[in-house]
């Protein structure tokens, strides 16, 4: 029911996203025909021929309807630059970005949950202050700097992990994980700091609530109080932000995938933008936007499992 109620607004969002994506890419200065031909071959006749071939001379609304009509059937067209089908390019690359992103979130949560809880439990102590200042420090370092340091330490000095060279999971799962580790870690560092800060704040609030005091009085161990009683009610902000931060991870993937030479969606997008590969840009941007909306929609639904007391009507207002 709840899903059905949210559906119209979801569709409206997706429509707006598709329209904006299309308009923004179409209004970019720089002629794709020129990019395809290269400056030395760009005679006016050749440019006119390419533009006609690509339908670039049609009015914008016609081009949009063509594109969105085909996109709804899963046909995003063929890349101007590489002639590969856009949908195939995205399907080939999505697993790489997804793997790095999910791995980054897992690493960030694995570190942030215990550290955030420790920080809340020891609020105000030296441990808490150390954790807080470290988090702020990590937040302030941009991911490409983190990446370069990680490469220097793990690839050049220690030689334990490869700096570059993606291996597909299906080819060799172990090598795949090795090639994904440094990029994921580069993305995870900032997330880790955000998650730690959030969990700490929420958990300090939870630990002051009556049911925790009650549990303490009953003699329940600290460990049990923290993990079994306090963690779940303290996770709402963390959940919400983890959903919203998917956007940051996708944004970060543009930089990280270029640095680590990974064949992911972020790098695909960057290169498509640089050469005005409009259909590719539109397709990738649409897929990213859809994944983002879907992830946050899912987070929304997950609230009810975290806390059945929250009705969907109110939880919707939180996002």
């Amino acid at each position, binding site marked *: 029911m709840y899903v059905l109620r949210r559906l119209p607004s979801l569709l409206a969002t997706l429509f707006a996203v598709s329209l904006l994506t299309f308009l923004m890419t179409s209004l970019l200065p720089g002629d794709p025909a*020129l990019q395809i031909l290269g400056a030395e071959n760009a*005679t006016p006749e050749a440019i006119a021929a390419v533009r006609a071939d690509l339908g670039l001379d049609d009015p914008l609304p016609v081009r949009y309807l063509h594109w969105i009509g085909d996109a709804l059937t899963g046909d995003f067209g063929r890349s101007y630059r590489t002639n590969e089908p856009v949908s195939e390019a995205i399907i080939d690359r999505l697993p790489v970005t997804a793997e790095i992103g999910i791995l980054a979130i897992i690493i960030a949560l694995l570190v942030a949950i215990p550290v955030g809880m420790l920080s809340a439990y020891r609020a105000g102590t030296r441990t808490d202050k150390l954790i807080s200042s470290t988090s702020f420090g990590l937040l302030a370092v941009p991911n490409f700097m983190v990446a370069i340091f990680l490469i220097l330490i793990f*690839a050049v000095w220690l030689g334990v992990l490869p*700096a570059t060279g993606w291996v597909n999971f299906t080819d060799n799962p172990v090598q795949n994980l090795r090639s994904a580790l440094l990029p994921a870690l580069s993305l995870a560092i900032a997330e880790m700091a955000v998650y730690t800060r959030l969990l700490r704040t929420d958990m300090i609030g939870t630990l002051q609530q009556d049911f925790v005091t009650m549990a303490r009085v009953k003699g329940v161990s600290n460990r049990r109080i923290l993990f079994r009683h306090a963690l779940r009610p303290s996770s709402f902000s963390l959940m919400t932000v983890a959903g919203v931060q998917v956007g940051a991870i996708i944004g970060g993937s543009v930089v990280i995938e270029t640095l680590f030479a990974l064949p992911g969606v972020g790098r695909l997008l960057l290169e498509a933008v*640089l050469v005005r590969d409009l259909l590719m840009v539109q397709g990738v941007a649409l897929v990213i936007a859809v994944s983002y909306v879907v992830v946050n929609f899912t987070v929304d639904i997950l609230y009810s499992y975290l806390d059945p007391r929250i009705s969907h009507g109110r939880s919707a207002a939180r996002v």
Partner: protein
Amino acid sequence: MRGRRRPVGGPWRRAVVSAGLVGLLLGSAACGGGGDDGDGDGDGGTEVGAVNDVSDRGDPVDGGEITVGLEAETSSWLPGEGTFNQPGINVAYAIYDPLMHRTADGDVEPYLAESMEPNADLTEWTLTLRPGVTFHDGTPLNAQALKTIFDEYLTAPGANTAASVDEVTSLDVVDDLTVVYRLVEANAAFPVLLISSPGWPFSPTAAAAAGEDAGANPVGTGPFRFVSWQRDSQLVVEKNEDYWQEGLPHLDRITFRPMPDEDTRLASLQSGDIDVMQSLRQSTVIRARDLDGIDNYEHLGSNSGGGTVNTSKPPFDDVRVRKALAHALNQEAIIEVLGGKGVTPPTTQFFSEDSPYYSEKVADSYPAYDPDKAQKFYDDYVNDPERSDGLPVGTDLSFTYSCPPDPSLNEVAQLVQSLYGALGAQVELEQVEQATWIQKMLARDYDTGCTRVGADSDPYIVFNAAFTEGPLNMTAFQSPEIDEQLDILRTTTDIDERKAAVEEIGLVINENVPNTFSGGTLTVMAAQDQVKNLDGWVFPDGTRGNGAASAQVMWGHAWLAG
């Protein structure tokens, strides 16, 4: 490691000689580090011009595999469809063979072709193929294959080769192994075209079978067969056991990886993730010089940093303004900003010291940095009642300087702004993305800005594009003297006559300054020292090739020491 610097013949010798020459030209400015050829004291990072720091190659060894880190991915591997820059040409030379190639002396000779002969007036070129050569799919390489490629791919509507093969009115089959290229008019430089993608035969049967996906499934005659390609990740080729050149290739397998980031590409070479690395960026070239166990194959290309001036627009239509702009540019300071101080020589013409077309006379004629002269030309124009922009006498110039958004170009633009500002000009800086910038220059909708000047192509091709009525004349500069010399370049193959013509054109350019120059561009192929012979390739008849010029390698000739 440093003790084995070993200039041997051909391009190496020329590189080192030119390094010395430029050292002399720079005088005391270069004495800080450039003079001593870097023997043993680890200052390899400060030598002027191209340096080849290469270990002994020993005897060829068969077998082994290597991984090569390239600057960028290529859009498609099908000639006519793909845009082949330095990274792409490297892969192409593994899978395809160029019909023609360049020798160490700069001549263009048949490589895959057996011979290439013009008729008396240079309007028809007869190309003969070698017997018995087949594509990787078994299709024979014959005259009909060349014709099909020409008719159905290179000249197809929308093919990016259509403009460059425009001068060929038809390609006709003479017999099984012979074709004739008939040209619109005489062109002595025509064979140069067949070094690049229009001269890389691919299997027409395989391309037809692959249809729209032909660009992802290249089938050539080259030393290596295509195995697999994951875009933006890697392209794998393996030894072509039936290669037409006996004894080649030496390697079993090569993996090419596009790695756009300079730092990680260098780190990957250091950590051993890759065996060979390509770089076209000064700062990386210099850093690669200081790595242990790494051989550096450098090349100073004719592609130089510089500025382009829109001579169709006042005040730039007046040569005094253009001279003022040129004399005001402090080349050394710009090179320093670009990270090439003491390494990259200042440029004065379209062809680098490593090119046979380089001229001392042209070098002397360049309006080099001289603030006083610049001011004189500037004041002369500004105070001229007849000034072309129609503004009142004494009004300072005000214009835009455009550059693509690159951090070092940004710094260059700021420096240029202050240098022009010192004359009294008001310069507004504009950042335009590469794609937009090229378009603005083609449309002549700009004042002046950053660009690359010069190319490692034939002078006729370079100057004909740059200074005639064609659409690629970004500066809008033309001159009857240049047209006259272009006619000579077009109609003679005599190298001395051609050099003289190029010199004349160079003098006209430096007299009229439609372009300014900053510094040349060093390129490098840096390799683990067990990877050998990246620059030692030879033609089938034993003539020495042009080495690893512009960081392009003929991979069939490379090997891995045991």
